[in-house]
């Protein structure tokens, strides 16, 4: 399946923080065919550093999509039956308008003059895209991590437009620990002299800071067990310690590699803006009353967490499940056993696929019957 990223352009979007962004562009990909009733559309929402290229082989880069193991013919999100949409989030740097985009008023990149955005803003833009594709009802919105936050936000903001949501390995609001890790990443970027208050687009980007931020991120995506299995205390191309501060351990080499890889595909300012949007995320707008947030929601939920995910621990998913239960909502929940930590939703997909497939099938049949 060779796929190509497309671009939709809208005149403007009003943001939760009060600012208006004009114009705004969204990069997106679609897979499969929209049926005549326009009832088989599924929106996939990506995690923090993801992009619109969720599945298939990219026409431009020849690379597979970030959830290619979940989306495709016969897979959990079956492109033979469903029309799948995935777009790059607002504030991103892979085709959708973000801090690296050119501000048409000044002719220069926005940099830090880009307005602060929220998960709700991202979802609003997704709604605009979905509307522009002529789809009034999505069968499903599904995503992991920050993608899961968007799925939850869809259920709360547009309950009449989505039949079911599948929030995976996610939370209804960022915890102190999650904010803390994001803040470490932001500080690493801002401490890099190349960051220049965000004004680096015609210069050298803050590669060291961004790469350190990514290294921290990667640690939080794995688990103690998966790191032990993958690296242990193995040394990198040597048999003895170097007794210097070069690379000794495999794990150091891996983190450095992932850090430097990341720099070539991600914009440091987008890192700042998107992590901030995650930290601001709170489905209850600060009231803490999740029951109120879900009161009028009659969307079906499939909530999935993973036992070894310590970044988005299972209790956060269970809090959502408990509230939905209290409201007698239609919620299915499973805490899947996995050693892969937060990354499980991307890599440990056999059981996840089985559940998603069955849940989507039953939702589609219920939607037809309705």
């Amino acid at each position, binding site marked *: 399946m060779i796929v190509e990223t497309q671009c939709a352009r809208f005149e403007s979007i009003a943001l939760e923080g009060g600012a208006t962004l004009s114009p705004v562009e969204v990069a997106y990909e679609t897979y499969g065919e929209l049926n005549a009733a326009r009832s088989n559309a599924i929106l996939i929402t990506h995690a923090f550093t993801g992009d619109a290229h969720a599945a298939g082989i990219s026409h431009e880069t020849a690379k597979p999509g970030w959830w290619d193991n979940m989306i495709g013919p016969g897979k959990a999100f079956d492109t033979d039956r469903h029309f799948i949409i995935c777009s790059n989030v607002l504030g991103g740097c892979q085709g959708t308008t973000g801090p690296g985009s050119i501000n048409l008023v000044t002719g220069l990149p926005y940099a830090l003059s880009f307005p602060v955005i929220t998960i709700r803003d991202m979802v609003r833009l997704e709604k605009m895209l979905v509307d522009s594709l002529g789809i009034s009802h999505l069968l499903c919105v599904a995503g992991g991590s920050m993608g899961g936050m968007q799925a939850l936000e869809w259920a709360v903001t547009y309950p009449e437009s989505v039949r079911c949501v599948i929030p995976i390995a996610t939370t209804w609001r960022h915890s102190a620990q999650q904010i803390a890790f994001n803040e470490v990443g932001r500080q690493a970027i801002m401490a890099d002299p190349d960051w220049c208050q965000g004004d680096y687009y015609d210069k050298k980007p803050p590669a060291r800071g961004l790469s350190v931020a990514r290294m921290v991120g990667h640690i939080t995506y794995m688990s103690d067990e998966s790191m032990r299995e993958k690296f242990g205390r193995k040394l990198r191309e040597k048999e003895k310690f170097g007794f210097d501060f070069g690379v000794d351990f495999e794990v150091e080499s891996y983190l450095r590699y992932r850090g430097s890889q990341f720099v070539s595909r991600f914009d440091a300012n987008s890192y700042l803006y998107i992590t901030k949007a995650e930290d601001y995320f709170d489905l209850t707008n600060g009231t803490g009353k999740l029951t109120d947030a879900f009161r009028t929601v009659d969307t079906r939920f499939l909530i999935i967490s993973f036992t070894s995910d310590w970044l988005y621990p299972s209790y956060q998913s269970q809090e959502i499940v408990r509230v939905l239960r209290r409201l007698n909502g239609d*919620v299915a929940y*499973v805490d899947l056993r996995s050693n892969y930590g937060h990354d499980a939703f991307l890599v440990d997909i056999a059981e996840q696929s089985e*559940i998603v497939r069955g849940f989507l099938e039953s939702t589609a049949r219920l939607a037809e019957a309705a």
Partner: protein
Amino acid sequence: MATRAEALYHHPVTLSERPDFAVIGEIVQPGSRVLDLGCGEGELLAWLIENKKILARGVEISSSDVRRAIARGVSVYQGDIDEGLADYPEKAFDYVILSQTLQETRSPLKVLHEMLRVGRRAIVSFPNFGHWSVRTSMLFNGQAPKTRMFPYNWYDSPNIHFLSINDFEDLCREHKFPIERRYFLAGSKRVERFPNLIAQTAVFLLG
């Protein structure tokens, strides 16, 4: 146009393996709201959705069972029965079912109270520890009984409470759980006389 229930399942579900399911299937009124505690892979709920067009919810502790239940389209969540009921408002369901699980719960009495709080009615089925085979096994072997209904070794049995039909009747009397109907089964056959000696399974409709 297909109904909600017909829409859920392509293939009919059969209840052949568990005789108490047939009785429960008989009790549950069409279109009602049903919560199944310890629902396993959701077979009973799937059958009830298909045949009684119910609104189904299930709780199950085993991750692999929950997985299969969701995969077959039943809204089941992974959780502990003993604590899971507290979240539900009063009379949220028409029936709360506890099928062959009472003897496995840590606090059966608390669960029964909660079932009757959350449900208008409760359906409880359990294996009868008063059955003659259990009695003779104990009498002749002098060991923890191993029978067809209680096939486990004492150290790996999920059953942590052992009760007979008479025990359950006593409990209901003592705690004023109103028994609406009782069904006694040997295999899949109804038993009328000497149930505590002859019935392998009991199904009580409370409420």
